[in-house]
């Protein structure tokens, strides 16, 4: 079975629900592990990497949690396959660039994903929809405990699990959540929030992790320190910070609706107007406008439409997902036209947005604050 056949369809993915999924798109806990006495992937020669992969892959495949999983070496995945995996947030951009000597094991539910020979020998991650960091931690902790009986991990009592980059040393844990924060962006409070989250020793990144921009008002929040703190404390700390951010986002939305309803409806109405009538549109503009439409759905401005639609479109309008529906290689300009065609078609079933709040739409001018 190819990876494209294996993956859940975007519409099914969009139907997944979890706590706070109005704002928290997904939760993830990742652990970095390495084998003792073997060079890290970035320094190992190709033959060594292949040997390590051959040692790790069967151990991972044999876990009960990964029964029936998709397992493949990266050189057997095409560039389009890899890009689709990145767009689904299942592999990192770094792993996308890997070939022979690296591998991927992914379970059917797409809740466990193990990258072999990425930056470390093992990067195992548990994924959950909505805010479920604790559940994700428990799941990956179990996978790790099972794997340690089969593999000889590089571990030091003083420094913990030894990783290629000292920034991951100790627990090797990265706890993160993907957040949709259009309210904080529209209220121009997002930079303030990012600054205070940074002060807590947490990092805020864009849609595709390190060094990427926050397309579609989607932000990733994660821990930065991995040594000198117990895993469950890190999970709790992030959980608390996320609860705060959720509250701020809800407050920002409520306040915007109260003080500047016209501004909010204008953004959402224009977003719908463009998406439903466009003939050429880039993936970046699509994501930013879909984000506003998603906000409109949250505010019940689109009767009959639900978040599944915007969330599915968010995935299927991305370059690799668009490309895979066509056999011939598309240029960026061609994709922009096909993307627009798809959006117009899909939005025909969605009526024009109308503000739900009685009276709010009728006020002649937004209140100035």
């Amino acid at each position, binding site marked *: 079975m190819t990876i494209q056949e294996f993956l859940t369809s975007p519409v099914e993915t969009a139907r997944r629900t979890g706590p706070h999924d109005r704002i928290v798109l997904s939760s993830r806990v990742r652990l970095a592990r390495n084998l003792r006495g073997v*060079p890290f992937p970035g320094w190992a020669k190709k033959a060594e990497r292949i040997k390590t992969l051959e040692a790790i892959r069967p151990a991972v495949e044999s876990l009960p949690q990964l029964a029936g999983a998709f397992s493949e070496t990266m050189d057997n995945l095409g560039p389009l396959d890899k890009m689709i995996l990145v767009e689904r947030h299942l592999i990192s951009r770094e792993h996308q660039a890997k070939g022979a000597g690296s591998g991927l094991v992914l379970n059917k539910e797409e809740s466990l994903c193990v990258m072999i020979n990425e930056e470390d020998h093992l990067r195992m991650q548990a994924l959950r929809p909505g805010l479920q960091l604790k559940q994700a931690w428990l799941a990956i902790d179990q996978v790790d405990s099972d794997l340690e009986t089969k593999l000889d991990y590089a571990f*030091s009592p003083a420094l913990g699990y*030894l990783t290629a980059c000292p920034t991951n040393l100790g627990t090797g844990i990265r706890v993160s959540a993907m957040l949709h924060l259009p309210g904080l962006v529209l209220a121009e409070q997002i930079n303030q929030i990012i600054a205070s989250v940074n002060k807590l020793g947490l990092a805020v990144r864009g849609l595709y992790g390190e060094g990427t921009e926050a397309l579609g008002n989607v932000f990733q929040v994660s821990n930065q*320190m991995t*040594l000198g703190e117990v895993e469950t404390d890190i999970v709790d700390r992030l959980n608390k910070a996320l609860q705060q951010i959720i509250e701020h986002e809800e407050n920002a939305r409520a306040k915007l609706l109260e003080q500047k309803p016209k501004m909010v409806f204008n953004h959402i109405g224009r977003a719908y107007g463009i998406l439903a009538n466009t003939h050429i549109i880039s993936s970046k503009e699509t994501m930013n406008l879909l984000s506003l439409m998603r906000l409109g759905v949250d505010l019940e401005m689109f009767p009959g439409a639900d978040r599944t639609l915007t969330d599915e479109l968010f995935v299927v309008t991305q370059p690799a997902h668009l490309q895979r529906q066509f056999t011939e290689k598309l240029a960026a300009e061609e994709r922009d036209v096909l993307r627009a065609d798809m959006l117009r078609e899909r939005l025909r079933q969605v009526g024009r947005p109308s503000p739900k709040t009685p009276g709010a739409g009728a006020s002649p001018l937004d209140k100035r604050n």
Partner: protein
Amino acid sequence: MLCMICKQNAAQVHLTQIVDDKIKKVDLCEDCAKHKGINDTAGFAIADLLLGLGASQEMAQAGGGEDTKCPGCGFTAADFKKAGRLGCSQCYVTFAESLENLLKTMHKGTQHVGKAPYGLRQSRDLADRLKQLQKKLDRAVTDEDVEQAASLRDEIRSTRDQIEHLAPGVKP
């Protein structure tokens, strides 16, 4: 003032951050700042930049110089400066001294307190238990509680036995 990254152009972007009561300053030229995404405040975490920059500086200043070579994998301090990553798990022993300060600035502590492989976890628990029992025994002896002391001595003996039977690699 020259840019701290390329060391060629004049620094025009100046950032100051306070980490653990210490002031950290970063001076960059426009190109490097842009490259690091400083114009894009949303995607930028100053700590990333500081950590990345700090790593190579610490390694460069650390004792042993750039010639120190890891016996496990042949990795040198110069390689780390270039890659920002280490060669193998043994590098943590080879470059231990150089890494100490770096880890201090990077993490909450320098001693791992989280999860450990099962064998080591068991060993850690047994060692803790032994210490506790020893303390209790000392108290029992001071209090001249002979009965209590005898039972504690038995417990200590059995704990020691368990430690003896651990795999050689995980003994405390």
